[in-house]
């Protein structure tokens, strides 16, 4: 009388608490066999926690997990693997110095007297990659292959373990539009072969395209589950945020004035390989406009920004800021000439995490006469300045100016950096991925701040990987591919698809740029 249960995996009324926060509060998620089920929510909505519970990394305080209708206990990743649950993590869990094959077999190795036997494994992986169209070089080291291939390695890891339930955690964040297209196809293939897929994302376009059903979480709570076919993007975003969201940034047309930043023929050597990371880049940014450098991660944007701000040396080219040649100036001299910089990595460059908030607020200007007297810090002045910024930019923290930066949330850390950099009131703002990892509210806020700065006559140089951000925020788009500017686009006249072609190197403008 065995009857196939409707769901392969059910997570019923899951509650998971961390000290001081309920990350999951009575959440229910039911996955049908062979479906692609999207899990939608903002950063901090509890998606990752829920998946960690399913994967055995956390134990829930309440609730039950069922596999094929039967209750199961998942206490470690080993239990999850035994139940044929596999996961592609957002940050790949790969050993960079191992080969693809070693990465796939790690933890599930065939051995003879303890010695590795890779022959059968190699054959099995080869068969799987044939079956699902997942092409990888098994003997290449992971550090040498593209992000797309690394992701395929992760998928093969799951298939090698005969997993039936596949979890994809924000899989598209690092891919090009074309690679995303491919991934969607792979996911559909997998589902067609009977695999059940959980697809975690906050990108509405992708969810609409690929999923059968959607479960929405908000602030750790369950909002609802609906069929994708019967809903709209607007509906989903309302469910996700809890209020109607403006998907488009509201801004007046730009009114560019004089040139603030002129870059001519900038070339930067790579630290990893022998070629140049940035090749002969030239452009001008004017006061009163937002110029965006778009591109897929790793196409020279980081090196370009480092050379522009002085963190790295350029090997050729010229940089002019407000009429001054700053090509060979120090970081501080550039900053004093008129450049503020919201860095890409807030933990590496943006903040001294072990310093207090107030100490971080004066990181760029502690040496100004306002904050020091003959080399002695004027603590009172620092305190009142920090309090002012905290108030004005609504930076929330446990203990105000004396909060240690490390203990603040990512959004508030970023707000603090934005506050610090904007308040310096300089003609050029270099903003690199200013909204990475932030929730919708914080993104809206930072976008509006950048537009306000533009309207106040600043030049804003935005470097972004997010297509939506590029299209919505910028007045002019420069696409960077393999270190070169391959196209200049007007966001009002172009489409996401066209932008994607430029970003993937499939299309480029003007032969005159190929002098390098």
């Amino acid at each position, binding site marked *: 009388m065995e009857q196939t249960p409707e769901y392969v995996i059910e997570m019923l009324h899951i509650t998971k608490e961390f000290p001081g926060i309920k990350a999951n509060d009575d959440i229910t998620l039911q996955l049908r066999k062979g479906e692609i089920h999207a899990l939608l929510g903002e950063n901090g909505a509890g998606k990752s926690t829920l998946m960690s519970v399913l994967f055995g*990394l956390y134990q829930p305080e309440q609730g039950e997990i069922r596999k094929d209708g039967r209750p199961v206990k998942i206490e470690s*990743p080993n239990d999850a693997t035994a139940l044929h649950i596999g996961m592609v993590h957002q940050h790949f869990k790969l050993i960079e110095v*191992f080969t693809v094959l070693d990465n796939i077999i*790690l933890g599930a190795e065939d051995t003879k007297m303890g*010695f*590795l036997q890779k022959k059968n494994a190699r054959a099995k992986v080869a068969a799987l990659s044939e079956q699902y169209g997942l092409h990888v070089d098994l003997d290449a080291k992971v550090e040498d292959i593209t992000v797309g291939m690394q992701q395929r390695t992760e998928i093969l890891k799951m298939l090698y373990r005969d997993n039936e339930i596949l979890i994809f955690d924000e899989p598209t964040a690092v891919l090009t539009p074309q690679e995303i297209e491919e991934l969607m196809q792979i996911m559909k293939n997998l589902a067609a072969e009977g695999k059940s897929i959980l697809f975690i994302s906050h990108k509405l376009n992708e969810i609409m395209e690929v999923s059968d059903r959607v479960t929405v979480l908000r602030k750790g709570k369950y909002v609802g589950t609906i069929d994708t076919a019967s809903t709209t993007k607007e509906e989903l975003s309302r469910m996700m945020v809890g209020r109607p969201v403006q998907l488009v940034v509201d801004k007046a047309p730009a009114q560019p004035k004089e040139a603030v930043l002129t870059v001519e023929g900038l070339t930067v050597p790579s630290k990893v390989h022998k070629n140049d990371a940035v090749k002969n880049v030239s452009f001008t940014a004017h006061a009163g406009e937002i110029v965006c450098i778009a591109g897929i991660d790793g196409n020279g944007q980081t090196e370009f920004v480092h050379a522009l701000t002085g963190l790295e040396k350029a090997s050729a080219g010229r940089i002019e800021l407000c009429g001054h040649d700053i090509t060979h100036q120090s970081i501080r001299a550039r900053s004093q000439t008129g450049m503020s910089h919201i860095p890409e990595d807030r933990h590496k460059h943006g903040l001294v995490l072990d310093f207090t908030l107030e100490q971080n607020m004066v990181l760029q200007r502690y040496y100004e006469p306002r904050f020091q007297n003959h080399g002695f810090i004027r603590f009172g002045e620092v305190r009142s300045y920090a309090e002012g910024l905290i108030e004005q930019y609504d930076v929330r923290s446990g203990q105000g100016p004396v909060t240690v930066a490390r203990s603040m949330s990512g959004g508030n850390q970023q707000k603090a950096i934005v506050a610090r950099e904007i308040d310096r009131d300089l003609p050029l703002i270099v903003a690199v991925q200013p909204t990475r990892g932030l929730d919708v509210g914080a993104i809206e806020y930072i976008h509006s701040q950048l537009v306000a700065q533009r309207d106040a006559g600043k030049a804003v140089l935005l470097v972004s990987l997010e297509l939506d951000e590029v299209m919505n925020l910028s007045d002019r788009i420069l696409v960077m591919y393999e270190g070169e500017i391959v196209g200049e686009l007007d966001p009002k006249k172009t489409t996401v698809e066209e932008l994607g072609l430029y970003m993937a190197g499939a299309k480029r403008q003007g032969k005159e740029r190929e002098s390098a």
Partner: protein
Amino acid sequence: MSFLIRQTLIYAVPLMIVALAGVFAERSGVINLALEGIMIFGAFVGVLFVRLVQQWGWFDAAKEMNNWVALQGFLLLTMVVAAILGAAFSLLLAFAAINLKADQTIGGTALNLMAPALVLFLIRLIANQNTLQMATGDSASWFMIKKTMFGFDKKAKLGFFGSTFLDKVYLTTYICILVFIILSIILYKTRFGLRLRSCGENPQAADSLGINVVKMRYAGVTISGALAGMGGFVYALTTANCASTGDVAGFGFLALAVMIFGNWKPLNIAGAALLFGLFKCIAAAYASIDINGDGVFLLANIGLNANFYRLLPYLITLIVLAFTSKSSRAPKAEGIPYDKGQR
């Protein structure tokens, strides 16, 4: 020439084995700065064991009868004892670094301070002086392999190979080389090795695949301790005439440098150890090295101060580090305590 090779090996072998000790710890993700201390401890334990067994008289009979098989077996046993206690001592580091997520540099430094202190405290109580020696005889007369053991006459000529590798050598040299080879194979060809290395590169990934990171790191540190303890005894036996003084003259740190220079890879480490062994050998015996056998002591005749040769290995280490640091690639997760919650 064969004297030079023999002497070089005497310094190179402990360096090599202790550098491999560093590899096992660091490849599992724990920086073992305590190699020096563990060597000191292993040397003390080994010498004490030799001394005690001598005092119990068990092996004097073998010595009397020139039963060199028993004597070499006894030597092997001592190596094992030093390895076991070295491993036990290293558990202090493992506990601090893995369970308590302590600062590994400070933890290692603590062990480096603890070993000589404890050892000297005990030596002073046992021997009433600052050196612990064998109860009778010296290491050469007890443990050295000589050509007479193979039935050759005292005056027989063995040729270059024989006189270099079969006469006036210690068995420990060959045991260490053997252990080095076996462990290198284990590191690269077995499931255990693959998993151990994964913990030093990306413990989060290893954990997500069901590998017990804590267990692997304990294994790495324990193996490291065993090798360093054994290396310490071998050092004391072959270079210090089987005496323990609470000191191995920075040898453990040189081994760390050899490890970095060898880029955490056994084959490169073996090469680096030979190079460093040569310099150590020159420093220790420059006055009696006769390179081409013509009776001219070239290095001694240059007339440089002895202290110059003594500081040479350290200076060269620095220079080598300066040139190789850019291309060296440490295990990515070394020194970072693994925290399950931090995914």
